[in-house]
């Protein structure tokens, strides 16, 4: 699903700004914000099926703020973001999905969570067998299924 149309310069600026409000950089965990250049480029390139709803979200944010989201001061951004979240709905879901799906696949973020930045295949993972003696009390239960006429 490629989008023939793209976000306007103003929408792009607002999207980057709201991504940073959603997930700011954090020194304690040594992670970038979602407005980091590489992450943001991934977000814009990956809007896919959410494109229309993200655009609605950006429009709504601008309407709530009375001007482009990126032009608001910090306090006003927080207030507008809170109102927008309180409204819920498909545009909010699309906006947050679009940001989160890219943020949480960035190498730096994955590393900070103690994970390897790689797809599941082909290496997979190891799953411990666990203690099957836990099943002993269940093994001794009488039959539970009902007999039928």
């Amino acid at each position: 699903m490629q989008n023939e149309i793209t976000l306007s310069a103003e929408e792009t600026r607002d999207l980057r700004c709201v991504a940073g409000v959603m997930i700011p950089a954090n020194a304690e965990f040594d992670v970038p914000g979602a407005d980091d250049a590489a992450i943001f480029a991934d977000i814009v390139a990956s809007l896919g099926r959410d494109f229309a709803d993200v655009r609605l979200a950006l429009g709504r944010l601008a309407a709530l703020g009375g001007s482009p989201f990126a032009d608001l001061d910090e306090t006003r951004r927080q207030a507008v973001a809170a109102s927008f979240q309180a409204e819920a709905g498909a545009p909010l879901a699309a906006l947050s999905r679009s940001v989160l799906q890219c943020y949480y696949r960035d190498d730096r973020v994955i590393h900070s969570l103690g994970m390897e930045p790689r797809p599941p295949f082909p290496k997979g993972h190891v799953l411990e067998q666990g203690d099957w003696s836990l099943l002993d009390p269940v093994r001794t239960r009488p039959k539970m299924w009902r007999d039928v006429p």
Partner: protein
Amino acid sequence: MNEMVDVLIIGSGASGAAAAWSLADTRMRILCLEQGDWMKPSDFPSNGRDWEARRYADFDISPNRRARDTDYPVNDDNSPMKVANFNAVGGGTVMYTAHYPRMHPSDFRVRTLDGVADDWPIDYATLEPFFAENDRMMGVSGLAGDPAYPPHQPPMPPLPLGKTGARYAKAMNKLGWHWWPSDTTIATTEYDGRAPCINLGHCTPGCAQGAKASTDITYWPHAIRAGVELRTRCRVREITTNEHGMASGAIYYDADGVEQFQPAEVVIVACNGIGTPRLLLNSASSRFPNGLANSSGLVGKNLMLHPWPQVFGYVDERVDGDRAPMLSIWSKEFYETDPNRDFVRGYTLQFTRGTGIVNEAITSAAAGRLPWGQDHHSTYRKLFHKRLQIGIACEDLPEEHNRVTLDPVLKDSHGIPAPRIDYVIAENCRRMMEHGIARAEEILTAAGATNLHAARVALNSPGHLLGTARMGDDPERSVVNAWGRSHDVKNLFIVDGSIWVTSGGVNPTSTIQALALYVADSMKKRLATLFD
């Protein structure tokens, strides 16, 4: 014009594949038309870094969001539960989670035992040999000896318990409640050319390792070797009938969008509980004005979808998360009717391991658990890979107002009317859901989880599409007879989930496939008198 075939099967999913394989030993000319493509393991999401994002895109469980050109849209606006499916060779098995419980003996006798709905015209004992044959063909992993079931022997050992499974097991033992490792169709050893599971974790949107049994890698290779022809990207518009009221074949659009007619002596429909009534209703003619095989008026009615609340909480250590198949154990403690409860019938508890990095963030943000701003990071770290989650597979009883009809406006890319779903969750089911949610909360608490949540409203759609062309002995109360043949059209058979009379409280595919094998076997036994 295409050459006549003996048997035309429409749909290559769970049931169509099983029926094709079983009938292949008759040496009849068998053709299957499938609207979807062959899937390539190298195309599955777990090959790439965007593996989770693709679950919201070309591997979304909803055909409406996925919107591949092999999909058809479904109007499910008037249903709290949305339709999930997959349209490809293998059908829903490409996209299923591979939890593989059988129905229980009591599920076939709900009227006799509990005074609700209807008994099936067949029983567990009839299906038992077909369950076993299907377990062998699909390759089931599990453990013999579950006291909740009549004895059966899965051909492979169960999935490991892992950290998450062990937590659940200890909690269940503390409560004194039944649990058992789930039967799954995830290979735990090499099996019939399939490699064993290496814990990619993302089984639902296709298994890149090929450990999960979808029928494109189980039944189909055997059926094709035995001479069955499978034509992909062929979307059937309608089943045609002749002057004797018998099915004469099907009109379909081929891969180039060209309309074709395929003549056939016998037609078997295997399009699932939504696709089958859609096709039968789209096959209305002057002789069958209400749709094909619909003299009972029940085609499309009694849709059952299995309401499936999810209850989850978080523990204080990292557990398996998405580093293993989602599946671990099941509990049948609350499966059979208990007169002391305020509902009849019961449910399976399906214990799952957790979820992935992205999905945890998206679902937690949607539920308001994951804030925006600086607290985002510390909150997320309390959630990530710490989730325990229990699904409650509630038996859904048949009600005629829950139904599939043709949407007056919506059409697929070939202009064929799309299905519309009208569905409400029944009061008995709602009480069952609440009971299950309360029990799941007790279990999660016993397992050390806090921060508990129950998803009641945004009900997970399990993709179980059942009951819309039910089987029965009475032509006025059912669409097909006790061996899958239409009461009205004697050379028309249905083998998919639509022939179910009641839904049980289990994931359906094991029983769907056992039924398909049983119908095919019944046909083989009656070849000389099939249309009598």
